[in-house]
């Protein structure tokens, strides 16, 4: 049967390295059956980088696991490299490299020991190892850290080590499940360089799933998935073209950008409105040229400029249409239902001066100083291990500072009375709600924790369920929710008591663009109500949504100011109009050079 299948596949699609035909897969969670894939057929071509994109719960991870024989399909056939992935899974596994979303590095093993383990498991002959290691270490820049325990590496380095372990025997097909989640831009760029080098030098075929659409643009081909179905595939340009002639940048001088964005988003022909620097990017539902007066009635000096489309524009438009069909309506606008807040007034709400945090000999944060005004959205950007989370934990009173002064709403939360904590809301980096409690039970617990009771508690819970669109799954254990829903629930819990100050630690990490838009819509609405929001993020475009931001590296602040100020400061001959990502990378690299030279 093997030779015949080989010729058979040649007839079907000579270039298909991975092929799914009519594949369906269901999971049983508790008493419910969840369809993960519905009759999916697709092909991944040799020597290409194919991106698998789609919102959470679209079935990307299931597809990857089916492809390497870790799951068996309920229906249909999966063939990888000419083998049946279900029945000949060992043959597939010895030829395919697969990096799961949470790559299983042994954190108590050193970099070298992890490599050795996977070299042994993949059967790399000892003679071939030295050369391969050297190549991988050079590629990943881990050469200096071979003796370090994997658990002590930063997130980006861990991801690169995971990739190196997957590549220790050069696979013919490389599957990467969200390889860049939670990885800072510098590391992300390096990961991409590695992937392209593999394709070009070693002729590898790569299938990767990602939530970053700017990454999807770098793929040769993309496959768009939604709800277990393939919505479309083709080169990114083909997707991009769908939005040609419908994308614009709007400038409205003298107006607050969030107000402008909210107004634009509500306008009829607008599919998507997104803050970009001090302008707003629009995607319209038709190619008819927009009229400033129709979009922003009563606002003077509005200029609208046509801009080339991006993949994200098409993607969001497609998914929004799809979702509108599914639900028949747009999600409710939080700004409309949230009550206005009373507290107003000047003076910084968060003050940080000269704060240090030492762990043994290691300074996680060294001498950080900044202030955040009331109603500001303040962003903290930085690579993994830059000290963002440590700063957050100190501000929230979870960790004492080794030196310096911290004030949140005028008090140090570490020593202040418990009641002072009622004024803040905190959403931590990883999902940290009670997994086996249902959505409703989590909401009830956290509202009680903040002293809500009786009618007010019921009202707030109902509002949260409605606003965050969680009502249909109020009885679902929160652990079983898709990632995007988890984030929504976490935010709902942090907002139950209408805090004045909100701390969000990488709230959108790994969340797809639609969920991220919802998320920022809520943050903007809160900021308009004078809630102070402090947020950390890896997404550079999200940095643009902030009023002011600080870029951190190695426990220090490298740049502080409005997004425009930060970008302008990094203007250079190479980047006359730097994006936030350019600015970030320039800053980090500049620091690397000064430390290297000094």
């Amino acid at each position, binding site marked *: 049967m093997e030779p015949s299948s080989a010729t058979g596949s040649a007839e079907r699609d000579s270039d298909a390295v991975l092929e799914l035909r009519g594949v369906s897969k269901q999971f049983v969670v508790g008493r419910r059956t969840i369809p993960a894939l519905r009759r999916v057929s697709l092909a991944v071509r040799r020597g290409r980088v194919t991106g698998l994109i789609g919102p959470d719960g679209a079935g990307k991870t299931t597809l990857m696991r089916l492809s390497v024989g870790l799951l068996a399909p309920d229906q249909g056939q999966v063939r990888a490299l000419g083998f049946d992935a279900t029945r000949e899974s060992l043959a597939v596994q010895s030829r395919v490299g697969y990096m799961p979303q949470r790559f299983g590095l042994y954190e108590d093993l050193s970099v070298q020991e992890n490599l050795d383990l996977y070299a042994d498991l993949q059967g790399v002959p000892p003679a071939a190892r030295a050369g391969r290691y050297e190549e991988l270490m050079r590629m990943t820049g881990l050469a200096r850290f071979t003796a370090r325990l994997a658990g002590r590496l930063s997130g980006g380095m861990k991801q690169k080590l995971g990739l190196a372990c997957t590549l220790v025997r050069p696979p013919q097909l490389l599957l990467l499940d969200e390889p860049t989640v939670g990885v800072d831009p510098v590391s992300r760029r390096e990961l991409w360089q590695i992937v392209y080098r593999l394709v070009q030098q070693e002729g590898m075929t790569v299938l990767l799933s990602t939530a970053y659409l700017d990454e999807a643009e770098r793929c040769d081909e993309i496959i768009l998935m939604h709800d277990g179905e393939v919505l479309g595939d083709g080169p990114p340009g083909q997707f991009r073209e769908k939005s040609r002639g419908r994308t614009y940048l709007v400038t409205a001088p003298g107006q607050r950008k969030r107000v402008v964005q909210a107004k634009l988003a509500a306008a009829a022909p607008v599919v998507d409105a997104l803050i970009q620097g001090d302008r707003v990017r629009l995607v319209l539902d038709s190619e008819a040229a927009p009229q400033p007066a129709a979009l922003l009635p009563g606002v003077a000096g509005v200029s609208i400029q046509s801009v080339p489309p991006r993949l994200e524009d098409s993607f969001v438009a497609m998914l929004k249409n799809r979702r509108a069909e599914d639900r028949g309506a747009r999600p409710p606008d939080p700004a409309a239902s949230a009550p206005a807040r009373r507290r107003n007034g000047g003076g910084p709400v968060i003050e940080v001066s000269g704060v240090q945090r030492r762990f043994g000999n290691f300074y996680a944060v060294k001498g950080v100083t900044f202030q955040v005004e009331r109603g500001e959205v303040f962003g903290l950007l930085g690579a993994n291990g830059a000290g963002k989370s440590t700063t957050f934990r100190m501000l929230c009173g979870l960790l004492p500072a080794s030196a310096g002064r911290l004030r949140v709403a005028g008090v140090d939360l570490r020593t202040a009375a418990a009641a002072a904590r009622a004024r803040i809301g905190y959403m*931590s980096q990883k999902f940290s709600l009670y997994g086996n409690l249902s959505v409703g039970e989590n909401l009830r617990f956290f509202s009680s924790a903040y002293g809500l009771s009786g009618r007010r508690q019921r009202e707030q819970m109902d509002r949260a369920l409605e606003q965050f669109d969680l009502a249909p799954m109020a009885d679902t254990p929160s652990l079983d929710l898709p990632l995007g829903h988890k984030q929504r629930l976490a935010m709902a819990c942090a907002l139950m008591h209408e805090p004045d100050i909100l701390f969000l630690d990488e709230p959108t990490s790994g969340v797809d663009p639609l969920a991220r838009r919802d998320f920022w819509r809520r943050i903007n609405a809160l900021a308009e109500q004078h809630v102070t929001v402090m947020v950390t993020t890896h997404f550079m475009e999200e940095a643009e949504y902030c009023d002011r931001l600080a870029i951190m590296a190695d426990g220090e602040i490298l740049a502080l100011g409005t997004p425009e100020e930060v970008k302008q400061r990094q203007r250079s001959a190479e980047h006359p109009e730097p994006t936030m990502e350019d600015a970030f990378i320039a800053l980090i690299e500049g620091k690397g050079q000064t430390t290297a030279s000094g």
Partner: protein
Amino acid sequence: MFRRIRALTVKEFLALLKDQRSRMVVFIPPILQLLVFGYAATFDLNRIPFAVYNEDAGQAARELVARFAASPHFRPVATLRQEAEITPLVDAKRVLLVLHIGPTFSRELLGGRSGPVQVIVDGRNSNTAAILLNYVNTIVAAFDTDWQQRAGGPAALAHLETRAWFNPNLLSRWFIVPGIVGLLTLVVTTLVTALSVAREREQGTFDQLLVTPFRPGEILLGKALPGFLIGFFEASLIILIAVFWFQVPLRGSLLTLYVGLFCFVLSTVGMGLMISSLAVTQQQGLLGAFLFLVPSILLSGFATPIANMPAWVQQITYLNPMRYFLVILRGVFLQGTPFDLLVGQFWPMAIIGFVNLGLAGYLFRHRLY
């Protein structure tokens, strides 16, 4: 404040009992173990297999053998013809005792002299051997007395009238079963609490708790209450089974017993939470619980009396809450010990409990990562 603590307690219960597996772990094994251990954990020996090597055809020898065979403690399984048969039988553990009566036994006795009887005991389990020797002595002593009376010889100058208070038949089940109440309560409350903080730390929910307006005291109470309630519930269930199933007399007042139970659970919950707030991961919590449980059980007097331990080990046992609770349990169950005689057992447990709870509450916020 009350409402917040209630919310915490409800949350703890939900987190613990919603998962079917952890629900099973908390409730089923303790009950099963009580039933099995209640029957298994006994020092009383029944129907001990023994062999007879009787070289004497006389009537006195036959009578002595008959006395052994009639005892409920012994069960004859072999009659030997030659000495060489003894070793393999004992080695293979087929018998624990060999009764060897010499050829001249009856003759000596009839002559008014002493007749030799040899007993060979398997000493691999020294405790069994010691108890067994006691049984042998008792049977032989009874035989002696009867023989002397029938022979009309001088009666013994004095005889023993023995009585065992509180446990007239010296049933070791009456000793062990109340101990199991303590044992299982200890294991369950420690396991429930020792992982509660560690699990939240590992999952990141503890930080979420710490940024809410809960005071450390409230978190502590919220964490301690489920352990308390489960401990009380299980202990009550086990007490019921002990009294109605195993028929162990409960002579003292329930109030005294429950005051003791309260102090004991206070101390174990405190210990569990202390371990838990020291641990960073669940595995560490589990190991900590284990390293606490094993010595607590071994050095409590549950199976081996504290009085038999060397002085320095006895000093250590004063740190063990189980030690005090076992005194209370056995005192109340069997002796009906009144409240005032047990005060000395209550307060050390309460102190252990409060010190540990205080430490745990401190560590909630001050444990560095």
